[in-house]
């Protein structure tokens, strides 16, 4: 059997087409994702918002100036002072500032566009306007000026929050895209599974007839092919993961050994999916390959490859679908390894994946057991 494994390894390595989809394509795609999504989450990261402030000469508002200075010092805003509106408009049009502000009877802000940064800016200055309104309304109701204590209390910035310390990793949404690529790569082992069955099942190729007529028991032929295909695919996925980790700086968490275990289970699941499709379908080889690719890509879409929120939506609204989608099981395993400190969720995913692998393999092997056919 060692010789069969040796030759099957050669066969797999020399199948350029499958090597391309499982090896080169996944690396290329992950590189593209890294280039494209590099700054995807920058929109939410807090940075000083650049704004222009129109300060007219006779304008006097000490409190407002203090507020501006305080905000600048805290790093919420970056102010460019201008003396007239035309200048401010020019800065805005050239995108040198995100907004400009004029302070007259009321605070007026003009922005480039709606967005997180400008919403944040509005929030900062709403605070100021609301405190002023409270000051005025309180005076009106009390029918007297506010005491020093009341003013201090009013201006005090109180924080009622305490962040719940969690031992979860940083919620980096972009990582899910990379996890779906690895899932895709693992399940593309199904292409190998289809090819493997073609070389063994007598009614699928002449080479398979020759194999069937040999004294080597079928299970040995099958096993040697599975071992060789698994070894190569596992190696390719390992290279992909290492490439992502060290070249693209994708985070996998602290349990790298578990990541490689998930790789192994994933590759085996993909391979057994291919065996299942190859054994029970009567179509041509390329149609079976399209079936495997179709199942993989649809699964990856539902696991969030094109739209990361899709994974969550499926999980919340159709959890059954999440549990039966091989791509999602894999993606979720990598995600939970990265994000969660404990192994519970990962183990659940692994258990289901093992179950699917056994099921696919079992049905496939049962279909492959037949050694006589109606026609060849």
């Amino acid at each position, binding site marked *: 059997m060692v010789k069969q494994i040796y030759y099957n390894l050669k066969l797999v390595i020399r199948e350029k087409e499958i090597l391309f*989809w499982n090896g080169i394509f996944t690396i290329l795609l992950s590189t593209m994702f890294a280039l494209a999504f590099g700054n995807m989450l920058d929109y939410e990261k807090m940075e000083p918002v650049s704004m222009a402030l129109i300060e007219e000469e006779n304008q006097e508002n000490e409190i407002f100036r203090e507020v501006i200075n305080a905000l600048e010092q805290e790093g919420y805003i970056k102010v460019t002072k201008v003396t007239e509106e035309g200048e401010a408009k020019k800065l805005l049009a050239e995108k040198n500032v995100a907004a400009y502000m004029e302070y007259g009877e009321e*605070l007026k802000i003009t922005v480039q566009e709606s967005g997180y940064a400008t919403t944040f800016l509005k*929030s900062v200055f709403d605070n100021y*306007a609301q405190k002023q*309104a409270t000051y005025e309304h309180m005076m009106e109701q009390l029918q007297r000026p506010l005491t020093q204590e009341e003013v201090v209390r009013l201006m005090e910035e*109180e924080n009622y929050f305490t962040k719940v310390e969690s031992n979860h990793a940083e919620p980096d949404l972009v990582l899910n895209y990379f996890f779906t690529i690895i899932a895709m790569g693992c399940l593309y082992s199904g292409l190998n599974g289809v090819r493997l069955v073609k070389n063994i099942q007598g009614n699928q190729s002449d080479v398979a007839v020759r194999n069937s007529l040999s004294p080597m028991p079928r299970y040995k032929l099958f096993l040697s092919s599975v071992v060789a295909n698994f070894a190569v695919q596992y190696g390719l996925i390992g290279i992909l993961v290492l490439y992502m980790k060290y070249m693209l700086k994708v985070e996998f968490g602290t349990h790298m050994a578990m990541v490689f275990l998930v790789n192994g289970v994933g590759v085996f699941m993909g391979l057994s999916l291919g065996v299942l499709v190859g054994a029970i379908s009567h179509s041509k080889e390329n149609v079976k390959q399209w079936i495997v690719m179709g199942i993989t890509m649809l699964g990856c879409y539902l696991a969030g490859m094109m739209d990361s929120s899709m994974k969550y939506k499926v999980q919340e609204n159709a959890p059954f679908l999440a549990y039966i989608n091989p791509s999602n099981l894999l993606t979720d395993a990598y995600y939970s390894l990265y994000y969660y400190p404990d192994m519970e969720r990962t183990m659940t995913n692994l258990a289901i994946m093992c179950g699917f692998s056994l099921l696919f393999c079992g049905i496939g092997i049962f279909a492959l057991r037949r050694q006589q056919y109606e026609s060849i």
Partner: protein
Amino acid sequence: MKVFSTYLRILNKHKGSISLAMIIFVAMAVISVKSSDISQITEFQEEKIAVCVINQDEDTVLSDGLKAYMNEHTELLRENEVTNIEDALFFRQVEYVVIIPKGFYKDFLLGKKPKLESYYVENSYSAYCVENLINNYLSTFKNYALSFPDAAPETIIENTKRDMETECNVSIGKGNETNEMNGWMVTFFSCAAYAVLGVITMGITTVIKSFKQIDVKRRTLCSPVSYMKINKKVWMGHGVFGLVVFGILVLLGTVLLGKTVFSVKGLYQLLNLFAFELCAMGIATLMSQFVSNSSAIAAVSNTISICLCFLGGCFVPLEYMSSTAKTVGSFTPAYWYSKATENLYELSEFRLTLMGGYFKCLAIEVGFAIAFFSIALLVEKQKTMGKWKEA
């Protein structure tokens, strides 16, 4: 016309694999173009941050008032909509989770400074905005409570609510108004680049592969019809194929976007798409000089369309890409296609003086197309003269 009809027959035989990219594009475009009301957005709209408030205390005037206020200024999710806080945060289905602990209201009124528990993404605008909103609300409530100790809680809530309704006047600068339909047009035309690349490269390369099979080519060269004449017919076929693909995209655009496809902005977008299609045809003819195996054609076509579209900012807006990515992308025609789309998006007037950026991008795209065609023709000539090994 036999060559031309053969061209069409070959396309027809491979219509399944050729139209795969178009099918994927249709799916993407349909999902992306939303069915909400299309309205002219000239006013500033604050981002509705997704927040969930989980109340572990009793339902009090304060908690109800706070929730009502949050509902107006954020996208307030119900407690049962967030079953797993950690997952919801990771996938940005919720950006901030507030937990009102048991006994909060009582301690708050007693001045014990109780704390709300929170889950959020570190160092984000959304976290600041939500905390600012809630801190301000609670501070205002506290100020009224302390200054008017005999007032009923409902009155304090009323006062708080009234003050919190004060907002600064924020507007969008003239000329920066966005049209939601505008946004969908950008999405559609960005995705269309993928369809164009995928379909054109697959189609043209597949046909040329058939015509260039070594024995077929030799048989053709032995015939009394000149190879040049046959080549011309093949090019005619490329042209017709390109026009058909373009027509399908226009039709699709009309179905999804309505008459806006034929607005001034829409027509300029179509011109941009046409220029990009010329590039795609150039890429395909160049590709066919080096790739002749069917499975290799599928692999290379897919790789080129996905890589160029990612690098060119078709799937992800250019503003999200790193500067390195943009530098690399600028060497691809897809980048200039996206830039032209972006330029058009920002324009509200179409005076030629304002459209310099757009025409520059268009010129670069056409330049790429000419370059690809020229290199392809050169390689073809070298091969025919026997200097290059046949693919």
